[in-house]
């Protein structure tokens, strides 16, 4: 059946024998394929695999490891850290760190090829992985280079410049393939540049469209949320994390980063659309369908790039197409993804920066809690209520899981100029407490939470995977990979790694055996049940 399906599709594959486009689905990736950053387009990070389940998880053991060798400390960030989620296609895992792509045999952990990029700048803060179309891989060098590789060999096909690192743009995203578009976003906070999202041609890398995070000119929709054109042209709103996609609605959902200058808002009075927002775009044209702003006039560096997770649920007896996000600003949002209408906005950590909600369900920023010269105490840690590590939603429990950070920071304004530039201030970290939270998508209530006794996460922290085996996998701040019961929060199993889990765990099935795969620092670990077939 499967063979016939592939043969039937052969003429339509470009090129043949690579990733079957049918593997890219809204929900439920094929068992033997993890074809895109989040596994499927929804961003739920819920695996339908159930060979490893709550009854046998204690027998889970290490199948293989792959440790990155010969690279050494990377500029400004230290030893390599795997933040990417590997793609799995035809038994090969493709994963990245800044400047490097690795192809590894998914059964044995053996390196097949390695691609090395030599950056000319940009930030090596992270690399989230590759995108794939047929036999072609897409990778971003940190310095704004969009690079295509031949998947069987790792040979470079071409490279295209998509961002200017000299202006302090940088590129860390895993490209997302939607139909015949490769979607690429950018990062960069230091010099007040303007965010954008691009679609590129999978075959040539040529630009198909570019959507800017700010209106183009005064008079355009959204321009009334900025004082002038200069503020818009330097307004920020970076697009550095992969978004999600609903093929039925043909809408791409993307989070945008904080406004710029980051902490100094005096030269950009107004809500500053479409920074710190969730936007819905047409993937064929880049046209904006709707938006919801999570942190209007952001002055706290709260990039709103956390995964906009797509889920279907029944609310008040009606089946609904929803979008849920646990945002860096501390709010949990649930929206109708057909039109952006808000169903729920509720703090999952402290939200003292906000005075409440407006008619659209968007938080209203409290001017008294903007960064001040002498400091404003914020009841969210400086890195936000959560950050980029991917959350998960399990349709079995109806709960949304997020690795949250509770605590305090103090926000200082350091640039009081009428025309501040750059960060213009800082969010001084005070206390950070790491806690896994399970949020009810109907109420926003915390169904259960687990605070880790060791306190804060360090320079990296873990994403989350839920499975049909009634398991939740994630990492704690103390090098443990842990399996929780997603319904109760009870710990069912753990394994002490050499470093903290640093990516989003994923799962796949090969030769009748389910693997759990997780990156921790410079090492990829594969777990399976001994002898399971």
């Amino acid at each position, binding site marked *: 059946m499967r063979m016939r399906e592939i043969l039937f599709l052969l003429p339509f594959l470009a090129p043949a024998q690579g990733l079957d486009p049918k593997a890219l689905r809204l929900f439920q990736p094929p068992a033997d394929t993890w074809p895109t950053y989040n596994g499927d387009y929804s961003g739920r990070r819920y695996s339908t695999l159930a060979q490893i389940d709550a009854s046998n998880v204690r027998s889970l053991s290490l199948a293989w490891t792959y440790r990155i060798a010969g690279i050494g400390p990377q500029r400004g960030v230290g030893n390599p850290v795997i933040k990417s989620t590997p793609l799995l296609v035809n038994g090969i895992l493709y994963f990245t760190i800044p400047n490097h792509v690795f192809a590894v045999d998914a059964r044995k952990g053996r390196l097949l090829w390695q691609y090395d990029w030599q950056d000319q700048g940009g930030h090596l803060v992270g690399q989230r992985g590759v995108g794939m179309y047929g036999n072609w891989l897409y990778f971003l060098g940190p310095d704004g280079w969009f690079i295509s590789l031949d998947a069987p060999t790792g040979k470079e096909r071409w490279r295209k410049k998509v961002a200017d690192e000299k202006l302090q743009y940088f590129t860390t995203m895993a490209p997302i393939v939607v139909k015949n578009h490769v979607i690429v976003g950018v990062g960069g906070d230091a010099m007040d540049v303007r965010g954008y999202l691009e679609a590129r041609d999978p075959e040539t890398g040529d630009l198909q469209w570019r959507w800017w995070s700010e209106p183009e000119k005064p008079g355009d929709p959204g321009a009334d949320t900025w004082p002038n054109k200069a503020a818009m042209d330097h307004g920020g709103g970076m697009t550095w994390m992969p978004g999600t996609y609903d093929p039925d609605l043909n809408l791409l959902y993307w989070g945008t980063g904080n406004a710029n200058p980051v902490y100094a808002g005096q030269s950009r009075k107004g809500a500053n659309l479409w920074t710190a927002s969730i936007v819905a775009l047409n993937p064929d044209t880049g046209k904006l369908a709707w938006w919801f702003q999570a942190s209007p006039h952001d002055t706290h560096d709260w990039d709103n790039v956390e995964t906009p997770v797509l889920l279907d649920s029944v609310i008040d007896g009606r089946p609904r197409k929803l979008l849920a996000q646990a945002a860096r600003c501390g709010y949990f949002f649930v929206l109708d993804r057909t039109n952006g209408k808000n169903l729920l906005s509720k703090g999952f950590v402290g939200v003292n920066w906000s005075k409440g909600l407006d008619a659209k369900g968007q938080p209203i920023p409290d001017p008294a809690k903007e960064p001040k010269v002498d*400091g404003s105490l914020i009841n969210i840690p400086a890195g936000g209520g959560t950050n980029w590590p991917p959350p998960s939603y399990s349709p079995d429990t109806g709960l949304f899981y997020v690795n949250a950070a509770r605590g305090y920071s103090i926000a200082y*304004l350091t640039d009081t100029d009428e025309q501040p530039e750059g960060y213009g201030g800082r969010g001084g970290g005070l206390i950070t407490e790491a806690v896994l939270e399970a949020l009810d998508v109907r109420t926003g209530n915390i169904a259960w939470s687990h605070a880790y006794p060791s306190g804060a996460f360090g320079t990296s922290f873990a994403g989350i995977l839920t499975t049909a085996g009634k398991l939740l996998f994630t990492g704690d701040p103390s090098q443990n990979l842990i399996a929780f019961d997603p319904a109760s929060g009870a710990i069912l199993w753990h394994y002490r790694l050499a470093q903290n889990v640093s990516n989003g765990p994923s799962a796949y099935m090969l030769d009748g055996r389910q693997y759990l795969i997780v990156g921790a620092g410079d090492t990829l670990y594969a777990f399976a049940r001994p002898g399971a077939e």
Partner: protein
Amino acid sequence: MRVLKEGWIAGALRKTLSLNIRWNPADLKSKPGRYSLKRTMKTLCAVSAVLLATILPAQEPPAGGRGGRGGPALREFLGLGPPPDAEAAERGARLYSPNCGFCHGEKANGASGPDLVRSPLVLHDEKGELIVPLLREGRPDKGMPAFAAMTPAQLSDIVQFLHMRVELTANRGTYKTLNIVTGDAKKGEQFFNGAGGCVGCHSPAGDLARIATRYPPDQLQNRFLWPGGGRGAPRKVKVSLSSGETVSGAITRIDDFTIELNDASGAHRSFDRGDGVKVEVEDRLTAHRALLDKYSDADIHNLTAYLVTLK
């Protein structure tokens, strides 16, 4: 040296020199050369890694610390190129101010003339190769005078001044906290002795005597808000084992599964947190943690104003 000549048209210059962020990717060369920063990077990587805990980039969560420290390490991280020469930049500032400041602003962030700090030309310049020719020739058609009479050294100093302005803007590791002593010391003292409950553990004549001579105000403020740093202060623990034995000491590691400590003799002890093992953590910062939930910003600023009087 020439001063600005007539016919200066700032608006016209803005179009060429200033920020056209909507750049065309095709304008950029398609082959990267050797990365010029590379040679300096390797030696600094180790330092960078150590300092990272306090200067984490915006994408990442903080690993505790105070933020805003570690300028050189952050510069490497940002890929900002060779660091500006501070002495040359200072000389350059004295040249910049009378010659350029009127139009481009004293801080080079723009006035009637364009912003030079966020200028793509300045940001693409490494050591004057783009800026110096422009200064020499000016942009007469746009109204910018030529500074042909300046010596190469003077032009170079202006270049260094501009790069220093970029450094002080882009590199948040160089940011300085401004004057944070804005509160009312009297009210701060009342808070210390009253609602804050600080006097229960601390004394201005005892442990806090001359505290303001040991820390600048911003550090003092951060330290009383949370003395332990992001990960919390060293904590003590009492572990009661199922055998009835109890072991006390300073925690060296704790998670959901194990507790590790150094006991009174300094010996390292490690226990599984299984059934029958009771772990009691003594946290001396409980009162500080509780205050975080209570402070108004005014309480904080008043307390700081009071503590800076303890000299």
